[in-house]
């Protein structure tokens, strides 16, 4: 050890932190200060996930582009050529692609976050750190794919001659909203996944249903009109409980600028995603204490 690490280097006695270990009961505080103290670890975990993401793949980061492009082509065929659902005055390819970007961010972040505790099992059983960082960084690392695909979207906007709207500043906010939603749901699922491995089987199918319940290949107006006729009372508003409705509509509004601001959908989206986030964090903290014994 170097000379500088002699006891003189240790903090004075009175400022030593005291850690109390005892069984906790009921709900625990979120302990955000601890999260903040470990922010560098959050950064390193995210950075690791990004670095490792495309190692040993042949096409590497191209996958971030290929996936939404192929989805777009299939959706165009299904909903356009076969279904004939109108997309208003927006050309179908860019209409779908704009929605696919936040959706893919959300769905892959959700599945990464749900698996994150199990895949970081090794660390969880050997070192202490706030476990919340694990699903948190799983979600952050998905942003890279989003940014890569976003470049393609910008290209499409040039091709289809969509000028930048005055609402373009809101794009990062919608991105954040998608991530908060994914984190909220991901916290619940990741904690469940440790206790009940059913989540692994349930998730792909839930995400698939969820995708069709999000106005990706069809416009929101179309869906809410149909639901209005089908459902009594104001039950069609239930559709808005899906926070991705607000996110997807928000993206179209901020980037393609053809509609009015989807205010109602956004109010729902923000409330639902914050509710999921806060409840998810408390639930996660409550389950956290048995993580190391469960995995």
């Amino acid at each position: 050890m170097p000379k500088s690490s002699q006891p003189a280097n240790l903090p004075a006695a009175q400022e030593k932190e005291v850690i109390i270990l005892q069984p906790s009961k009921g709900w625990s505080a979120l302990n955000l200060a601890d999260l903040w103290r470990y922010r560098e670890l959050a950064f390193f975990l995210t950075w690791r996930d990004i670095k490792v993401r495309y190692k040993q793949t042949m096409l590497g980061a191209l996958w971030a582009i290929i996936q939404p492009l192929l989805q777009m082509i299939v959706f165009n065929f299904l909903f356009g050529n076969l279904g004939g659902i109108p997309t208003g005055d927006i050309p179908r390819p860019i209409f779908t692609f704009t929605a696919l970007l936040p959706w893919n961010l959300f769905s892959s972040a959700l599945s990464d976050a749900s698996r994150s505790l199990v895949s970081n099992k090794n660390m969880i059983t050997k070192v202490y750190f706030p476990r919340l960082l694990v699903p948190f960084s799983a979600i952050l690392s998905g942003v890279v794919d989003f940014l890569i695909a976003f470049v393609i979207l910008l290209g499409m906007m040039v091709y289809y001659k969509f000028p930048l709207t005055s609402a373009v500043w809101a794009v990062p906010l919608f991105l954040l909203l998608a991530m908060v939603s994914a984190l909220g749901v991901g916290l619940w699922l990741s904690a469940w996944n440790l206790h009940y491995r059913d989540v692994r089987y349930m998730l792909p199918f839930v995400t698939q249903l969820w995708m069709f319940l999000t106005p990706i290949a069809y416009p929101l107006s179309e869906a809410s009109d149909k639901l209005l006729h089908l459902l009594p009372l104001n039950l069609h508003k239930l559709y808005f409980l899906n926070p991705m409705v607000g996110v997807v509509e928000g993206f179209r509004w901020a980037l393609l600028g053809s509609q009015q601001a989807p205010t109602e959908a956004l109010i729902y989206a923000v409330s639902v995603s914050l509710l999921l986030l806060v409840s998810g964090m408390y639930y996660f903290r409550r389950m956290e204490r048995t993580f190391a014994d469960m995995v």
Partner: protein
Amino acid sequence: MSEYAVRVENIGKQFRIGAEINRSPTFRDVIVDALRWPQRVLKPQLNPSYDHIWALRDVSFEVKHGQVLGIIGRNGAGKSTLLKILSRVTEPTEGYAEITGRVGALLEVGTGFHPELTGRENIFLNGAVLGMKRKEIAKKFDEIVEFAGVNKFIDTPVKRYSSGMYLRLAFSVAAHLEPEILVVDEVLAVGDAEFQRKCLGKMSDVAQEGRTVLFVSHDMSAVLRLTDEAIVLDKGRVVHRAPTREAVDYYMASGYSQSGERIYQPAELPPDAAPFRPLAVRVRDPRGNVVDAMRSTEPLTVEIEYRLNSPIKGLRLGIYCMTNRGEYVFTSFDTDMPEEYDKFAVRPAGHFTSRCQIPANIFNEGQYILGMNASVFRVKRYFHDEHALAFTVDAAGAPGKQWGEIRLGPVRPDLNWQIEEAAG
């Protein structure tokens, strides 16, 4: 501020075992459980749906600031559980503990290492996982690389490292952690002998700097070298606390067969031992008596009795002899000699005894531990018992006994000394 760095009061940890241990509950179990709740409330004693065991119970001890405490005990005694609680990986089921100071825990080296990342990247990642700040890691980076001796490969993905290099790098990061309280599990048992010496050196530097260290190891010589005091855990409880030398003697002597014979009951055998079924290990004197104490001037016979329920190809039975300080004296296998090796290329099903004679004038006086194992080289270890039995050697009549001093070293050979006087 408390005078203690660590104060543990009646800590206990319960685990669920039994039929449920191998799987996580599924939704189905939860639903079934929920439907059964009236039954559970009405007749709680009827619902032992899970078996529980206490991995730790009523554990209390204190460690003063700057003290280096060893924790010893056999596998399953609760050492690792205790360290996991102290390092906050898991919560105790009952009790209370207070830790004053920044804790660094080394329950494993290389936690968080990713094979695809380079050595450089893994140093930063692993450092962060262990709780180091980025600046701190950057400052010590060169030292870490130097200590690990991987300078040339620092930008190579660690999956291309040899296992030795990988472990050296992993240990090196951990060794540069500077917490006030260091909690270390078995991590020194890595790498080659030279690197192990280097690690031990590093650990004793840490201990001498006035840091508090809790050190768990199977390697009694490391415990003796690094710690002044030790606690002995047995079946989840603290059974002894004493200066290390005394605690190690207590640990090595306790619980082993003192009759010179160890008999294996079917219930204590792990299921994966089959088709190998150990029956007994024993030590006999030249007159054929089963003994636990012998003279160093007489040969002794070691016997392993076992049954094979089906043939095993390449099976070998080995004995490991260790001093009561945990240093190995020798290892030997029943198919070491070419004739036996060829004859028992496939050992048929049946009842066997593998027997060998340890010549006279091998052991120094003291207590020795005999371990045994049954394995197929590089394929499978069917069964092993590190501490099958203990025996005591008396050096009466051994070479050099005319002086009453204790001879150093585990062996006391009868060397054929010649003294020549130069002519002229």
